[in-house]
């Protein structure tokens, strides 16, 4: 407490003293911390959004989320499987090193390393070649329509810096591999990382040598995670913070009624759903056959959930109940498949009985408690819904830093996952990472043995289909299969809601990325 208080005082004093020099500090908080600073060691979009302030991709999202040149200025398709990128001249990394083709080659090879957690983010790329100092060729397994989408999430690192600091091999949050790059950063982005202390905070300052003209007026950014909803809101109300993202749903009304603060919100791309264990036995019932492999059981679990109560009570009417694994703006979405199974506890019990589990069964349910909006509360409610149809549910909630490695290792029976199809913003990301059988680049987020031959086939076909209508039809087919067989249990589309103090202008995006290089503070 005391230390925080002193820190705050110091920050306030610094802000006051430096005010005439127009020091525009933006202090913000979220419910959890980033999981690493190594861009290839994770696939978490919140972490990516924070890292994006320091590191940059070859192409980036504009203020309208369209793709625009960043570290690459232009590109051409030499052959269907060879794309040539011309790199931007005169860009330097934060340590002063010049940016060139060697950095891109080293970065992409680091990402393609089999031990990199994020290698599925660039799944069809097989290799990269340096053409000259400012030109590189990407080599692909086949024609691929989404290369630019994928590249918008691949940050470029500095070859010399990686070599000097013995960090050429990628980290991986699942296996726990870390390196110098896990806690340090040297990018080309609009902000320079000054300090990063896990679970304490991250401080960045504006990069005076940034190649682009800043649209922001910030001199520095201070981020610190505050898990407790009430504490986070209190920090904003007391002037300790300028922005909180997300704002707790129960406090939206209170903040809107307060002078000097406003809440900005819109539907997010992120869908929240429950995943299942498809192995031969459940962790909760060793030695017995896994009931979740039975489609009727999974449908029973879906029918058991009272989505209206979840939405109205826990999500305060701010969520949208869904039946499919992508949000409406995302390619692959289909309104026909976006129909949840209705709340029907009697029908659920009948389905369980039909599958031979009239007396229910035991399962674990694992959830994060600081990642998605009201995640813990949702899971407590789901446990109650499931126990009412006869299951015994062993619920465990924990922080994202231990939760995601656990999910990645397949140590769960039923687990909560949120997916916003980032960075590609395309249904293919669900197909490739979540639905496809885990094999090489596919199934990076399918740790529990889900395997459907038709989905795997569509995964291969959609990857190389250049006709957009046909490609979308394939995505829709795969997503419809997932829905009809209840491979996952979709819960809802969550809102993105932030609270800011007056005088702060930050654009909001449905992908929930906080892009402070568009922020202005007065």
């Amino acid at each position, binding site marked *: 407490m005391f230390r925080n208080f002193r820190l705050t005082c110091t920050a306030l004093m610094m802000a006051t003293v430096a005010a005439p020099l127009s020091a525009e500090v933006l202090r913000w908080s979220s419910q959890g911390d980033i999981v690493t600073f190594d861009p290839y060691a994770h696939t978490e979009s919140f972490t990516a959004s924070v890292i994006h302030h320091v590191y940059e991709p070859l192409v980036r999202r504009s203020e309208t989320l369209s793709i625009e040149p960043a570290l690459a200025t232009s590109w051409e398709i030499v052959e269907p499987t060879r794309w040539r990128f011309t790199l931007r001249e005169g860009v330097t990394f934060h340590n002063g090193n010049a940016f060139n083709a060697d950095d891109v080659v080293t970065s992409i090879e680091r990402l393609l390393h089999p031990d990199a957690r994020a290698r599925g983010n660039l799944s069809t790329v097989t290799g990269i070649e340096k053409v000259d100092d400012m030109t590189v060729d990407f080599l692909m397994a086949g024609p691929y329509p989404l290369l630019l989408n994928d590249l918008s999430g691949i940050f470029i690192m500095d070859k010399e810096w990686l070599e000097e600091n013995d960090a050429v091999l990628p980290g991986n949050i699942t296996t726990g591999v870390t390196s110098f790059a896990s806690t340090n950063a040297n990018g080309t982005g609009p902000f320079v990382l000054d300090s990063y202390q896990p679970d304490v905070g991250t401080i960045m300052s504006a990069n005076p040598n940034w190649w682009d003209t800043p649209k922001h007026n910030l001199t520095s950014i201070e981020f610190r995670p505050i898990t407790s*909803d009430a504490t986070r809101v209190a920090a904003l*109300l007391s002037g300790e913070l300028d922005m909180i993202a997300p704002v*707790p749903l129960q406090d939206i009304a209170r903040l809107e009624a307060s002078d000097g603060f406003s809440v900005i919100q819109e539907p997010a791309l992120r869908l929240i759903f429950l995943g299942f264990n498809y192995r031969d036995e459940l962790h909760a019932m060793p030695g017995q056959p896994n009931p979740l492999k039975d489609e009727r059981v999974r449908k029973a679990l879906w029918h058991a959930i009272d989505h209206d*109560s979840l939405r109205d*009570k826990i999500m305060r009417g701010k969520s949208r109940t869904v039946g499919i694994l992508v949000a409406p703006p995302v390619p692959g979405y289909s309104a026909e498949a976006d129909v949840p199974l209705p709340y029907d506890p009697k029908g659920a019990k009948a389905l369980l009985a039909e599958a031979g589990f009239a007396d229910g069964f035991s399962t674990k349910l694992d959830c994060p*408690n600081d990642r998605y909006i009201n995640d813990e509360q949702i899971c407590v409610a789901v446990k109650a819904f499931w126990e009412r149809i006869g299951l015994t549910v062993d*619920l465990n*909630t*924990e922080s994202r830093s231990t939760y995601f490695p656990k999910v990645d290792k397949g140590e769960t029976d039923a687990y909560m996952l949120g997916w916003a199809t980032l960075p590609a913003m395309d249904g293919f990301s669900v197909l490739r990472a979540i639905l496809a059988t885990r094999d090489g680049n596919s199934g990076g987020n399918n740790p529990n043995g889900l395997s459907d031959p038709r989905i795997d086939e569509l995964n291969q076909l959609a990857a190389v289909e250049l006709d957009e209508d046909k490609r979308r039809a394939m995505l829709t087919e795969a997503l419809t299969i997932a829905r009809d067989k209840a491979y996952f249990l979709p819960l809802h589309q969550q809102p993105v809601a932030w609270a800011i103090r007056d005088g702060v202008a930050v654009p909001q995006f449905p992908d929930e990325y906080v892009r402070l290089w568009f922020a202005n503070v007065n």
Partner: protein
Amino acid sequence: MKTGTIRRKRLPMPPYVMAAALVGLAIILAAILSPLISPVDPTDNASFNLIDAELPPSWLEGGDPRYLLGTDNQGRDLLSAILYGARISILIGAGAVLLAATIGVSLGLLAGYLGGWVDALVMRIADVFLSLPTILLALLVAGIARAVIPDADSVFWAPIILIAAIGINEWVQYARTVRAATMVEASRDYVRAVRIMGLPMPSILFRHILPNVIGPILVISTINLAAAVLTEATLSFLGVGMPPDYPSLGTLIRIGNEYAFSGIWWITVFPAVTLVSLVLATNITGDWLRDRFNPKLRGSK
């Protein structure tokens, strides 16, 4: 029982101590009897519905007469949740005190009676434990237990882990107090007598010395019970205590705290008031007991 001392003059019990003792007893009794007296069983999923979530206390607008103190964020009856929560909190607190007392008294008796290197060893270990903050040590034990036991979050294991985590660093007080008292008793004639009679050591320690040092142990236990209940609440508040779907006072306060700014004050206020009353009552009673057993204060008033 007291050997060779004058009869104690009883310290009268002031009214506020009487009141505190009654409040403490009432809460403990209500908690123990919670399965009988609480309106519903909050751990039974059939007893609540999400539709009823966040209803205010019954006397406020929008309140429901079925829920006297309102409902929590999952629609559970708050009164029942508090009663059951107090029961699990007191159970864990009492378990931790029992564990600490068992370890502490045994080691204290041994150290005080044997002296020498045993005494030195026990007291140095005690010093190490004293140098570790209670919460830190409890978090450490809970963390290790979670890594070792796969079902650490189950309703069965969570209380056991909490008892171990809290109990493990409170034994020091017992050991130090009992050691000092044992040293005094060990030099007395009745101990010499039983020793000459050839009684085995456990018998001397537990049948003859222990009854004469039990007074201070009871006093420490009362005060430690309050501390243990608080530690349990703190650990649950930090999220390493009872599972989130099983009400304990700390868990209820933690969940309710998320709503502190949204006008839904009852989820955190009622469990907090219960916790404060319980701890305050136990502390006042414990303080008075300490004064009563303190020979230096005897006859000063």
